[in-house]
């Protein structure tokens, strides 16, 4: 089991990761969800033994891997947020180079290269220079390189940033398959809640360097079991209407979105009619009303008062 104990990283006065405790069981798929700047990348850099923590420890099967990183490095596959490839070389040359670095040689190397290229669906285009690939294809090669040495733990830092939905889906399916069929333990960071929802057994929600909630998707959304979300689409700037809603007893939180307002209200005290009445009183036209089952996005909103992509 991989564990962190009171893990902390401070850069001068700024605390990037603040006493984080988490664990990953073998074969588990765990998500780290949080907005940009939440401290996810710093946290996984420490778990990957690339950055030394200011305090706290990381253990793998009870052994301190901060002091002895070589206990975990051979079984670790890291997919960085950047395209960590040599773009002037072909996909084949890139994969081959990293294979050699991992001391794969001869026939075994050639077999592994073809295996991972097949897995990411780029076997047919392996001779092309990476620079000519689309963003999605580059991300797939980025992942292929991390799989070459058959890692037991795969740490992925926002591996789908800036790519088309089709490639994103391909990567998600592939990671799911690796986790389910090959039993690879996955630590997946993202600020796309739908990715984490789809892939992960357990989720850690981070904000401002701290873990603010943890559990399975159901456990997290259960935080909002007594509440529900109402999304109002309005025809005008909702400032006065928003203030008015905030003053209502049954309305727990009001946030703006580009077309209107999102309300978190007590489930047993919905009073939709009252909201319509207020809108009419303020001469605000409600174009549509959407009463939703709570999502992770709503949980994050509830916990922090902000949206994940704010």
């Amino acid at each position, binding site marked *: 089991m991989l564990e962190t104990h009171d893990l902390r990283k401070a850069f001068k006065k700024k605390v990037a990761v603040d006493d984080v405790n988490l664990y990953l069981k073998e074969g588990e798929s765990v998500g780290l969800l949080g907005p940009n700047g939440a401290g996810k990348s710093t946290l996984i850099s420490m778990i990957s033994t*690339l950055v030394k923590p200011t305090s706290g420890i990381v253990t793998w099967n009870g052994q301190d891997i901060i002091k002895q990183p070589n206990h975990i*490095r051979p079984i670790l596959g*890291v997919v960085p947020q950047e395209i960590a490839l*040599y773009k002037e*070389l072909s996909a084949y040359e890139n994969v081959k180079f990293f294979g050699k670095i991992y001391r794969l040689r001869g026939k075994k190397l050639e077999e592994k290269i073809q295996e991972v290229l097949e897995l990411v669906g780029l076997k047919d285009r392996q001779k092309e220079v990476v620079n000519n690939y689309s963003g999605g294809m580059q991300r797939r090669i980025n992942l292929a390189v991390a799989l070459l040495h058959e890692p037991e733990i795969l740490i992925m830092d926002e591996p789908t940033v800036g790519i088309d939905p089709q490639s994103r889906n391909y990567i998600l399916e592939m990671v799911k398959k690796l986790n389910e069929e090959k039993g690879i333990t996955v630590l997946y960071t993202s600020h796309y809640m739908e990715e984490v929802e789809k892939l992960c057994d357990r989720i850690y929600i981070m904000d401002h360097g701290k873990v603010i909630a943890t559990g399975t998707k159901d456990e997290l959304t259960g935080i909002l079991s007594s509440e529900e979300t109402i999304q109002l689409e309005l025809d005008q700037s909702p400032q006065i209407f928003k203030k008015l809603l905030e003053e209502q007893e049954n309305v727990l939180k009001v946030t703006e979105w580009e077309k209107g307002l999102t309300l978190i209200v007590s489930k047993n005290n919905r009073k939709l009619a009252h909201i319509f009445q207020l809108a009419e009183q303020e001469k605000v036209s409600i174009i549509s009303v959407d009463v939703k089952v709570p999502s992770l996005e709503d949980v994050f909103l509830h916990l922090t008062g902000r949206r994940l992509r704010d």
Partner: protein
Amino acid sequence: MFHIFTLQWQRFRRKPLMVLAMIAMTIVFILFIGGANSEPQTMIPVSFSDDIVDSERSGWIDQLNELDGFKFADTEYEQSKERVALGNSSFGVIISEQHYTFLVGTETPNQSIVEQFISSLYWEKEKIDLAVSASGDDEASTKIEKSLKNPPIKVESVIGESEKDFFIFDNQLQALFGMTLFFAIYTIVFSLSEVAEEKQRGSWDRLILSPVRKWQVYLGHLSSAFVIGMAQMIVIFLMFQVLFGFDIGDKWLEILLICAFYTFAIVSLGMLIIGLVNKASQLSAIVPIVAVSMAMLGGAYWPIEIVSNNMVIIAAKAVPITYAMDALKSVTIYGNDLATITQPLVVLFFMGVLCMGIGINLMERR
């Protein structure tokens, strides 16, 4: 380490433009400054005014050609003017009975050397004329000339024993060494910028997590930049000796050693610069400033020997180019051996060790 080294070469083969551009720039600048002709000496056209009779001209030319390192040629005034105007000679001389005149296209250190020499010839001539007129003997002039050829006492004067005591200026080698060392800075530091780029894009982390040791990762990059820098310098030296007839001499072992120590110092300096900048893109702004300043201080553009400002001379001591230029000129112009250049090589080595230590430390702290 070997795989990282070969990877850099693989990448270099795909993107050789930067190194080729630096080689081309070096060649153009050497040809422009040092001249492409195979004539080892600087040709200076000499014209004579009407008060010098034709029979005296050859005597003047012979006397002028006693000055080492220059070739004086009897040239018609119009041709001299044209030659200087077109830049084929940086200056020319017009000899008259009582005075001399310089035709100057560009001012060079050579001009003052030639002027001193011509001035001494006029003083000598003046002294003989005075002696002749004082003696009242019509044949005194012939007798003095005869005596000068067979003097009762021969005084052999030695100007100095090393290049520190006298200075020989060779424009071709000055340009060749100066420009080669100068442009090599760009090639080496920009090749090293791969380290900073790898750190930015995350491939460095992949290498660190792999079974390869960190020192091997550094060594792979450093040795690749070293080989590229060395190769560029050697190619240029060979090219100018073989194709353009520059007289570098035959002390290739010493030249290779100087290049190796200089490249090591610049690779280390490159690591220090990369350690100081935050982004690889900042290098393109900083490297020209560093390279040009070092070339100016270290005598790559003009000989350090003509610099009289003490501040500049002291500042030059902190610049690797100074020591490399000194060692190269010592070996090629003055014909010194390995023992003589030990000191500049040791200084280059220690400069390299110091910069490398600080540079890697800065990079690791980030």
